[in-house]
């Protein structure tokens, strides 16, 4: 997986701005760390040197920190200034990180939700809807540690590490060679170990997830077991599955931690090598004490961002996976009907359903399969048939919410026939007054019971002056008195000229309908 998804920077404004500012702050941090090392070298050199220091031991970088810093008071002033600036940079960086993270999450969430709604009800109902909801709420939250912890370290590793390498090069080319030689080894080793262990860890991971889901399944089924008096047995099974899971997990961890070990080993060992080499070269008088001190202090700083990137790798993986899931949704093309001519008024129009088939999300069945009917104004048409055979789907197709896999939905007016595929669907759909099975009604609606919501949705449908009334199981969740009342209202609406379509199992409502249409499903031949 790429450490930074280019789509984040490309499409999300706050992400782009954050990356740029964090990179700049990282660069500034690098300079401060460099100055701090040089000041320490200046002030400690007179203490360590056997004789008085005459020339500038820092070579070409000597101009950065004046020789006066060899005096304690000057050096301390410099150090306090550097520390103060580092504190400010740290604070600004943290604040920016949290703000940017929250903004990116909000922005991405809004884009994904509005794209998902544009993709339409079928896509949402195909099970992708729940996945999208999880992605944009809990899923995207894992972008927070990505932005706050991982990304800054990643950017530090491309700012601080190179800057430090240049500084070390300016001080002492032999130490610089050691550093330049080892830094590229780190990604190479990590990739090699990753390649070697990938198959094994994938196998372990698979076993782990299987065991975990089986344990959870037992826990989730506990109320059911309890209701049948069978809850005692599985406790041993939970323990057994858990032990198997622990063994699988440890197997995968033994491998997974190896790349971490390689990282730590390489970085720390390189620092040790630099230190030892410096020590022997000092004895030979090949390097000045000031340079040696500065390089010794800087060497760990070269590797620190790389190590931190490794530490926060998990934050990166989760965050990027969430972003990836979000972008996957954003990349699904939307079929757009705006620009097509507006639909004719459906007042007094007959609606034609011709050979309509819609495949179920799993593609195994057509529900409805080859549905044919003409729905006339001023009548009540009832769609009947077993559950899952496509009554609600037929209604959604009729309203232009779902494209047909084959067949047509059209309006017959005095101007002739108009197919839904030829019109701007927004102007078609909004002519229907629809009371769905589980009405949503927005956040306020969520506090109501299903029966109450049903009644509110029915009231809204009856009260609108729209030409076509579409009611999906209008009498479910209702008691007898309300049911009779709804049937009376349906009949009255038809008598006043409205086109009424209902999907129902209710015998009394079926009896009140003018036309009854059987909706049937069909297995798809494989």
């Amino acid at each position, binding site marked *: 997986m790429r450490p930074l998804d280019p789509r984040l920077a490309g499409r999300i404004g706050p992400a782009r701005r954050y990356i740029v500012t964090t990179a700049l702050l990282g660069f500034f941090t690098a300079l401060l760390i460099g100055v701090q090392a040089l000041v320490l070298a200046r002030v400690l050199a007179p203490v360590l040197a056997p004789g008085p220091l005459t020339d500038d031991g820092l070579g070409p970088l000597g101009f950065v920190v004046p020789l006066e810093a060899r005096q304690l008071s000057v050096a301390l002033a410099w150090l306090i200034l550097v520390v103060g600036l580092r504190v400010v940079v740290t604070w600004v960086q943290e604040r920016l990180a949290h703000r940017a993270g929250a903004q990116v999450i909000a922005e991405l969430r809004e884009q994904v939700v509005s794209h998902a709604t544009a993709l339409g009800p079928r896509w949402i109902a195909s099970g992708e809807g729940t996945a999208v909801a999880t992605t944009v709420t809990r899923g995207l939250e894992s972008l927070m540690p990505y932005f706050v912890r991982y990304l800054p370290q990643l950017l530090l590793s491309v700012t601080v590490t190179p800057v430090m390498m240049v500084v070390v090069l300016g001080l002492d080319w032999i130490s610089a060679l050691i550093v330049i030689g080892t830094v590229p080894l780190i990604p190479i080793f990590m990739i090699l170990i990753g390649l070697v262990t990938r198959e094994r860890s994938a196998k372990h991971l698979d076993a782990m997830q299987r065991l975990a889901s089986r344990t959870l399944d037992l826990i989730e089924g506990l109320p059911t077991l309890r209701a049948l008096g069978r809850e005692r047995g599985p406790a041993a099974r939970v323990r057994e599955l858990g032990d198997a899971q622990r063994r699988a997990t440890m197997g995968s961890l033994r491998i997974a931690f190896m790349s971490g070990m390689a990282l730590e080993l390489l970085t720390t060992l390189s620092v040790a090598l630099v230190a030892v080499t410096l020590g022997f070269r*000092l004895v030979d008088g090949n390097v000045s004490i000031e340079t040696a001190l500065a390089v010794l202090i800087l060497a760990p700083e070269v590797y620190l961002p790389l190590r931190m990137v490794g530490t926060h790798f998990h934050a990166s993986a989760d965050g990027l996976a969430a972003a990836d899931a979000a972008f996957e949704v954003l990349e699904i093309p939307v079929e757009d009907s705006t620009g097509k001519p507006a639909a004719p008024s459906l007042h007094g129009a007959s609606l034609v359903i011709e050979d309509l088939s819609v495949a179920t999300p799993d593609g195994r069945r057509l529900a409805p399969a080859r549905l044919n009917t003409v729905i006339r104004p001023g009548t009540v048409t009832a769609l009947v048939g077993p559950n899952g055979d496509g009554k609600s789907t037929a209604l959604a197709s009729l309203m232009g919410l779902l494209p047909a896999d084959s067949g047509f939905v059209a309006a017959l007016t005095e101007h002739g026939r108009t197919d839904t595929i030829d019109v701007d669907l927004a102007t078609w759909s909004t002519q229907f007054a629809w009371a769905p099975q589980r009405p949503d009604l927005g956040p306020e609606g969520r506090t109501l019971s299903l029966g109450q919501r049903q009644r509110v949705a029915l009231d809204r449908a009856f009260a609108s002056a729209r030409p076509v009334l579409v009611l999906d199981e209008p009498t479910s969740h209702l008691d007898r008195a309300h049911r009779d009342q709804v049937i009376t209202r349906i009949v009255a609406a038809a008598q006043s000229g409205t086109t009424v379509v209902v999907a129902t199992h209710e015998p009394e409502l079926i009896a009140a309908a003018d036309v009854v249409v059987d909706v049937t499903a069909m297995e798809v031949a494989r």
Partner: protein
Amino acid sequence: MKELRTLIRECDLSKPRVALAILTGSAALGSAVGLSAVAAWMIARAAGMPSPADLAIAAVVVRFFGIGRGLFRYLERLVSHDAALRGVVALRARVYERLAAAPADSVLSLRRGDTLARIGADVDAVGDAVVRGVIPLGVAFVVSGVAVGINAWMDPAAGIILAVALAVAAFGAAGLTWRAARLAAERSVTADARVTEAVMSSLDGAAEHRVWGTAQEAHEALQDADRDAVSSQEQSARPAAFAAALQTLCAGAALVGCVWVAVKGAHYGEYGPTTAAIIALLPLAAFEGVNGVPGAVTQLFRSQKAAQRIVAMAPNTDSRGVSTQPAEPDSAEPGLLTVRLTELQAAWPEMTPTVPITASVGPGQILAIVGRSGVGKTTVLTTIAGALAPHAGTVDIHGEGAHTVPAERVGTDVGMTAEDAHIFGTSVMENLRVARGDVTEDQAAEVLELVGLSSWIAGLPDGLDTVLGTGGNSVSGGERRRLLLARASLTTQPVILIDEPAEHLDEAGRTALRAVLQHLSAHNRTVVIVTHHLELTDLATEVVSLDA
């Protein structure tokens, strides 16, 4: 932290393992501190231009520390994860046992919400408290102690400076981080909940929004909620930013202080250059342990929340003692019991009680409870099952010898099939054996025939052994209902309660229900069913309505 402590205790963590993890972790970070100290000594010593042999040992030690860090860290991670995983396995079993032994009313009401679905993650979070909370804190303490010890041994003033800076960095950051985590948690119940609601409304209602032209409003509601979430996020992050700044400040202050002490000490000849170099440079490496404190505190906070959820769901039931219930209820012919309801009113706390009902149902008979939706039919059933105390009136379940069945009867004398009973992710056969452990293939085939699932089974790749709920073998709503009915007809309890979902029951479902009811009454069971379908009530020996 009480709940987290309790649960960690229940993990039966092996103390030597945890100690070993802290020890190896400290060795790893200690290697970094050691490397820094010995390297400083070596450079200082080398500056005096001794013979190279004088540096030989130091060079070896430096290299050893260079390797030690990676090696010890690897060991620490293995040991700590192993200890925590063992704990999680133990805790998972304990939580399961706790839940299994908890009062029936609390277990049966667990079906609501996603609490159960979250329990796995919550138990893991308790394990994470060990790996990412307790052990890093232990390591931070040990390593800081070592660094302070080294400096204090050379110069007490430097030791004090380092100790104070480390303590402020650790405790200050811990306090600020805890505060940030608490603010964030408070936020999540308000701002984040609003966002989730707006998202759900946008998505679930997408079709409705299209028809009613309300999509724009829904999107604006989401933007509004998001703006709120961003600003409260910023507020809760403020202490975290202060914590990070405080740690940088403390590390810087320690460095300034130690350089000052070291240079002064060397100047006045209190110690030589090697000692001064170690004192001055040690703060650069000493803060790595303490820098892990915010992460550890955040983890502890998260784990504590998870622990609270677990404890709330599965309160400790040790005082109840171990149930005497056998693991496998015997499958012998069930006894005969009669259920008598007298002026029974049922209610969950704060719910309007149901109207009083009086009825009696004996072996081979069926009592149908009808009523409009939301009137409390399921609540009445739960009360009959003994999982909920009657609000008023009595439930009397007695056998022929007039012995009365005790209140804690669900699972023993009363078997209940809930509207949303669980289908396990295992084979069809095992799902039927949930009712009774010794179901044979013939018996399974018989009940599946009864509910009209024979052809469905025949169409499954492995027949009765097909694993459900994975890959393509998903179960449709209708098949699920009928499978649950097949399970209900295999139960052994003398009294069978069936909570039938009223909505959208199709013809096949109704036929299956009739068949199962006839089967149960033919086998002398006492059946109570909750239903919307008045046409089923012709099978019932008695019908009571909950409508006022």
